[in-house]
């Protein structure tokens, strides 16, 4: 018999919802996450926060509390970094490393697996983007929500997407001097797609509240401006933003928080055999049916891995997966609400596009780990006939480092697409996600897998 009826990978909003719902259906459930606490990036919190009934620092805290109360019978296995999901005859073997320091090999068998690994942030490289003090907007927010630490005292928040306003608002409330917000898109064009908004009054109201708070604190919000340069020696001290018409603005800062949307974390799904497609924001996502089932029997996917759409959608999908895996009916109203959120997500994707990488200077790094410049990738295309992302990786080492292409994969794909005149889809996003193990593991851990006598 398997260790669990279902293993849920990822304890963010979607995974929590799936685990709670599966447990309600009478299943034996394990919920795994590499972080120390449930909640994911969305509900990153300090231990003391978990006891509080209400919180100004967290969104929708009541929902976190409500779902948490339903996780009583779920084995919450925190600090478990899953690096492989292996389909076997009667289900799956989930392989993980427990602990980030004293690492221990863990092998868990399950009849079904729900993958709710979420997304990491996408940053389109720009001049100076590897300088310390430049970090993802979500990373800055995680520091604040998870530890009460601010990433800097004088910051610019730049990039594209609704997260920028959320993060700027959070920083302001924490006493940070937010000197500007630069949004590459033109969010007013949401209004051109009124059908997308129906049923989502609360989300538009939330955005309006952020804008009011920024305005009352005299924080300029520059729409149509993208970040073009971070300057400094050992830390960013100046940020340059520019409009499409070439108008430039500069700010003294000690941190820059940047986000150009998200990249779903597909590694475990792809290596387990799940089918994929390219979503309207260019992300590779898992193909699922209306029960959140992938094409691999017993393997479910929910939340951002099925298309970037935010926490509310991720929770609804988690409920569907939890019901489906337990054999409970999914109500039509749940599907209707999901459809509304999907429409909204498509509208957001259309407005908040990551900027082109065409302007990245040749001598700027595109791959942070292997320190490969944009010029090296372009030269490989020009001189070595490279016209797909995988060849670019083999020829330049871009994407071969510790992050396994998570940070540079899409940028390299775009560089190759521009240089070769092919569409990013043809250059192939999928190959960047095909990698096993999905996280760096020690040779000891891998060697242990080949010794049956020591198997757990």
């Amino acid at each position, binding site marked *: 018999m398997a260790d669990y009826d279902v293993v849920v990978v990822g304890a963010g909003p979607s995974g929590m919802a799936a685990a709670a719902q599966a447990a309600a259906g009478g299943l034996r459930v394990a919920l795994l996450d590499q972080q120390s606490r449930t909640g994911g990036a969305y509900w990153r919190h300090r231990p*003391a926060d978990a006891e509080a009934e209400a919180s100004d620092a967290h969104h929708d805290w009541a929902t976190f509390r409500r779902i948490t109360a339903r996780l009583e019978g779920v084995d919450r296995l925190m600090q478990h970094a899953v690096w492989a999901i292996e389909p076997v005859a009667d289900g799956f073997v989930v392989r993980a490393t427990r602990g980030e320091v004293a690492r221990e090999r863990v092998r868990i068998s399950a009849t079904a697996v729900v993958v709710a690994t979420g997304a990491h942030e996408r940053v389109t490289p720009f001049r100076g983007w*590897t300088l310390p003090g430049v970090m993802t907007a*979500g990373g800055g927010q995680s520091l604040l929500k998870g530890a009460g*630490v601010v990433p800097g005292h004088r910051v610019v928040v730049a990039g594209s997407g609704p997260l920028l306003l959320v993060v700027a608002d959070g920083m302001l409330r924490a006493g940070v001097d937010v000197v500007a917000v630069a949004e590459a898109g033109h969010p007013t064009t949401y209004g051109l797609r009124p059908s997308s908004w129906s049923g989502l009054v609360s989300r538009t109201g939330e955005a309006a509240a952020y804008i009011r708070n920024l305005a009352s604190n005299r924080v300029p919000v520059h729409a149509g401006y993208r970040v073009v340069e971070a300057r400094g020696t050992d830390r960013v001290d100046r940020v340059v933003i520019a409009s499409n018409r070439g108008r430039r603005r500069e700010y003294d800062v000690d941190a820059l928080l940047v986000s150009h949307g998200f990249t779903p974390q597909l590694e475990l799904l792809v290596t387990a055999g799940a089918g994929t497609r390219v979503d309207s924001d260019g992300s590779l996502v898992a193909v699922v049916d209306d029960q959140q089932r992938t094409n691999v029997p017993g393997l479910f996917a929910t939340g951002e891995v099925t298309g970037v759409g935010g926490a509310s959608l991720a929770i609804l999908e988690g409920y569907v997966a939890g019901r489906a895996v337990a054999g409970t009916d999914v109500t039509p109203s749940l599907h209707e609400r999901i459809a509304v959120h999907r429409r909204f997500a498509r509208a957001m994707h259309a407005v908040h596009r990551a900027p082109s990488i065409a302007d990245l200077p040749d001598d700027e790094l595109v791959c942070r780990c292997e320190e490969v410049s944009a010029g090296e990738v372009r030269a490989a295309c020009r001189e070595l006939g490279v016209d797909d992302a995988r060849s670019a990786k083999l020829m330049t080492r871009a994407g071969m480092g510790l992050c396994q292409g998570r940070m540079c994969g899409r940028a390299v794909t775009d560089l190759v697409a521009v240089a070769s005149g092919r569409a990013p889809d043809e250059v192939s996003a999928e190959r960047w996600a095909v990698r096993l193990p999905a996280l760096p593991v020690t040779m000891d851990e891998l060697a242990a897998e080949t010794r049956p006598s020591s198997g757990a």
Partner: protein
Amino acid sequence: MSGFDVVVDGAAVAAQDGDSVAAVLVRDGRAAWRRTRHGDRPRGLFCGMGACQDCLVVVDGVASVRACVAPATPGMVVTTSESDRG
């Protein structure tokens, strides 16, 4: 909020219950604590969620620990690659 000390490059640094190692380092005023192996470039926290591997430190003698994922624990010994630079 209960507090404790960790040791960073030989000096005691205050930590709070629930902190990641990265949170301890940033609260202590550090933006960078690693050097890249080719260009000797400074790096610190970038993604803050376990994906980018920029924030690696040595903890209790174990290399390649993600500072943003590893929880700080009392008495933990953190060594950064800035420790051997003057």
